[in-house]
């Protein structure tokens, strides 16, 4: 077949969706929205405090229900400076995504890192959550995590 017949057509795939967090996770988002509290959940069988919270332990399938209030401070585990742009991004590039182990949690939280010198980013950096003024019950009710002043770091 001749290639002369071929051409390309612009189109798109666009569908709106509506997701439900469910009763269990809603508690997390309501606490975040109304009280600026970050909750995790403990699996007594695995002896792990999970963030994000979840109603089932993926490791042992136990139902979970023991909420744990986590700190709004934590330690940077890994990070990346996102330098490309997509409509899915919450911020204009470049911006920083980090995995943060919140104080009191055993698993890492993904979030944005703000107010940070890129050259100062490193694993082990102490961070504190900055909350949005007008909170809607979503993960971006935390604006980002910013580095703690160095002097305070010594006291941890």
């Amino acid at each position, binding site marked *: 077949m001749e290639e002369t017949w071929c051409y390309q057509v612009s189109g798109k795939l666009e569908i709106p969706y509506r997701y439900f967090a469910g009763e269990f996770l809603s508690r997390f988002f309501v606490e975040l929205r109304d009280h600026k509290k970050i909750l995790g959940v403990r699996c007594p069988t695995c002896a792990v405090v999970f963030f994000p919270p979840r109603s089932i332990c993926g490791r042992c399938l136990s139902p979970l229900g023991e909420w744990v209030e986590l700190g709004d401070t934590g330690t940077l585990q890994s990070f990346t400076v*996102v330098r490309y742009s997509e409509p*899915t991004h919450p911020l204009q590039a470049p911006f920083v995504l980090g995995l943060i182990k919140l104080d009191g949690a055993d698993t890492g939280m993904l979030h944005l890192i703000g107010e940070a010198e890129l050259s100062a980013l490193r694993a082990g950096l102490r961070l504190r959550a900055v909350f949005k003024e007008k909170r809607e019950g979503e993960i971006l009710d935390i604006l980002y995590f910013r580095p703690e002043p160095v002097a305070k770091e010594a006291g941890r």
Partner: protein
Amino acid sequence: MNERVAIVAWAQTAYEACKPHQRVQEMVYEVVKKVREQTGLKFSEDGTGIDNAITASDDIWDARTISDTPVGDVVGAHHRSEEKVGQDGAQAVFYACAGILSGHYDVTLVVAHCKESQPASRNLITNLTFDPFFQRSLGLDYLSAAALQARAYMDRYGISPEQCARVVAKSYNNARGNPLILRARELSVDEVIRSPLIADPIRELDAYPVTDGACALILAREEKAKKITDKPVWIDGMGNAYDAYFLGDRDLWDCQSLKLAASKAYRMAGIKDARKEIDVAEVSAFYSYQELLWTEGLGFCPPGEGGKLLDSGATKISGQIPVNPSGGVLVGSPTIVAGMARVIEAAIQVRGEGGSRQVSKVRTALAHGTSGPCGQLHTVLILKG
């Protein structure tokens, strides 16, 4: 296992940035036509032909619900059976083997396709893997997730950007012996290091390029295989395993699901010392650091020593355990297709048909595929001559 399954034929399209002249139907037809010509097999259920088809593709990548519908005609599915694995092609090969080992089918056509050039960006698709509540709205996609894994791994074990760049240079240079990789060229470590950062520490050349392509292979049970070809390539070991989902749940520098998948495949194939017994490995590294990390997970070296293994020259084509003599995914192999293309490249090595990319004296080859973010699901297959 007394019953064995063999690969009896295979074909791949050229892997290039965009195939503007083909729809997925036509891309798949190109490779199906070749494997049918090689074997002379027709589609039939009377015991003389191809009696089942397994396809690998993805609805969102193809922008089409039930993405196996358009390729059904060319894989002979009309009035016959076809099943779609919505994952990496290595999973499709594994699953197709099970269909034969179960006694249900004799000869199975397996195909995989993806046109990564079709969507405006791959990141728009992989962002949709992430849950709508905790990860998706942060803009995470497979690229930024991989960057978080790369940083965690490199920090943990002191892997350098140069070592990652060396993986890329090796891939591009190896691929010059692979006529299907249209972007193969001589590439220096320096050029990789000078390419722009896209998601630290990943640079443009550390990431696999946007690629269109398809591949096909035919699997047959032992007695059929021996009739179809003089040179069957046996699949003697298979294993796979899922890791946890949330990136923060995982020790990203430690690929426990790959270790588990590999141990299952090795046990089935009777392999006790992977580094000694495996003659060549084709692994799915979508980002350069992954080749180093996956060689650790496969047990070719202790944890943290993937960089050392590379530096020792062991993974070169002439080395003790060559990795990706084909050039691998880093030079161009689309997602979904990647793992099955690795199976085919491993089979080429077992048959000794690798031309200038052929590794000497290959008896046992390993093929690896991965699905999901940061290697959440790994698939390992062991091939023997």
